[in-house]
């Protein structure tokens, strides 16, 4: 297995009391898989992502990527954040070049790679704009181009479309699905949106809070194009609703 998470847990001390953010998480992820971590706020999905990405390592258990224990962020992996994390003082091109600057490649090569990925996310006309001049959706596209430019093994996405309007979100979901298939990246994607998870993921890791843990793992057996209104799609969506006990039960007993 590519990513191996075993009995991982994370405890914080908050105002003198111990708080368990994550408990007993065991999960294996294969190379090239698209995994969604799904759950309500406080279920530890972002904590788990931050732990796998190496920002805040776990306090219990272990997380291994390619056989190596995760202790700090690796430049082989890249994280995309909800609030984009673009540098407002750099234009789009320079933002995309940021990750390439730590690598030993010539200026011209750097520019060529950056332009290729700006092109891929459809922002060629905006390469000289500054982030604050762009819409939220466009800013997140820049962040995606910046992440892809360094050719990472794994892309971590922490509610990347959470701040976008519904239509833009659907467009970006299409983009990211296409990218995951064409570029063959392993993607770990945190979301609280059930439909988003069903649309994107190969497997959905459903998490519940207090303490944060994995409730179940749902495979999405739909290959190729995913139609949000098809029976297969609704079936998986239904499954998740059931896991969260959010389905309406007509034969409920009445208590007076």
């Amino acid at each position, binding site marked *: 297995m590519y990513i191996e998470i075993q009995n991982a847990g994370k405890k914080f001390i908050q105002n003198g009391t111990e708080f368990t953010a994550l408990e007993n998480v065991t999960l294996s992820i294969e190379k090239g898989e698209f995994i969604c971590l799904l759950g309500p706020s406080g279920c530890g999905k972002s904590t788990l992502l931050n732990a796998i*990405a190496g*920002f805040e390592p776990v306090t219990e258990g272990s997380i291994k990527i390619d056989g190596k224990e995760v202790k*700090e*962020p*690796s*430049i082989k*992996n*890249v*994280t995309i*954040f909800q*609030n984009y*994390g673009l*540098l*407002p*003082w750099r*234009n789009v091109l320079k933002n995309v070049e*940021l*990750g390439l*600057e*730590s690598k030993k490649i010539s200026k011209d090569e750097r520019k060529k790679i950056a332009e290729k990925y700006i092109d891929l996310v459809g922002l060629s006309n905006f390469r000289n*704009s*500054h*982030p*604050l*001049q762009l819409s939220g959706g466009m800013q997140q596209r820049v962040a995606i181009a910046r992440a892809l430019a*360094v050719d990472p093994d794994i892309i971590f996405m922490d509610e990347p479309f959470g701040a976008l309007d519904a239509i833009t979100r659907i467009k970006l979901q299409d983009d990211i699905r296409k990218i995951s298939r064409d570029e063959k990246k392993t993607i770990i994607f945190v979301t609280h949106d059930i439909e988003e998870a069903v649309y994107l993921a190969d497997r959905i890791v459903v998490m519940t809070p207090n303490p944060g843990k994995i409730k179940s793992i749902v495979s999405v057996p739909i290959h190729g194009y995913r139609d949000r209104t098809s029976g297969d799609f609704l079936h998986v969506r239904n499954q998740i609703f059931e896991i969260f006990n959010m389905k309406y039960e007509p034969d409920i007993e009445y208590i007076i």
Partner: protein
Amino acid sequence: MKKLLSVKNILISFAVLILIWQLIYTIGGFNKALFPSPYDAVSALKELFTEDSVLTDVGASMARFAVGYISSVICAVFLGLILGRLKNIFQYINPVIQLLRPISPMAWLPFIVLWFGIGDIPAVVIIFIAAFFPVLLSTVSAVGKIDPIYTKVSKSFGIKQPQLMWKIILPAAFPQIANSIHLALGTAWVFLVAGEMVGAQSGLGYLIIDSRNNLRADTLMAVIIIIGLIGLLLDTALGLLEKQILKTWGEN
């Protein structure tokens, strides 16, 4: 915020000031040697430019100011960036800074003269001290307030020191630092004149003392006007520069 200093506003407000000045002079019937009229001040100004070589003094003052202010800002920003990242060390340095900060730079003057002698250096050192602490403290605070996402992004892309400082932290903290650099300009200019009133043999501060010694109230007023105008010009110029830099960031 629209332009605070439009040409029309400047002209009107200066015209009103001169009018009030003239009124006080006319109504009060003051002695010319104690309170010059606008006319006296303007003729003294003319005299300063034609008969005396006031531009040499302006040049001397500007040179001292440039050396003191620019070196102070560079040191303060550099040190502030480092201390802003080293919170544990700053905890111990901060009390000393807070102790030194409220001491007027002028209080150090006797020592400065004893250590460095008279001439250009006292004014330069005074300006350096005047600008140093506000810029240092503001830089430390600006670095502390940087959005943590920038640090996360840098980690994600493997950006390490010294690139981290130069590429990420300095630009991210820049708007607040620029603000304090701008404010320190005014403070430093105030202390230039004070610094030159002792020990210097040229410059605007020296002209003030010289006018006093010669009992020339009109020249004194003329020099005061020059000091004010240059201060205003410097402030406007730096404001434009600041705006220009922030503009290239796509900020409005």
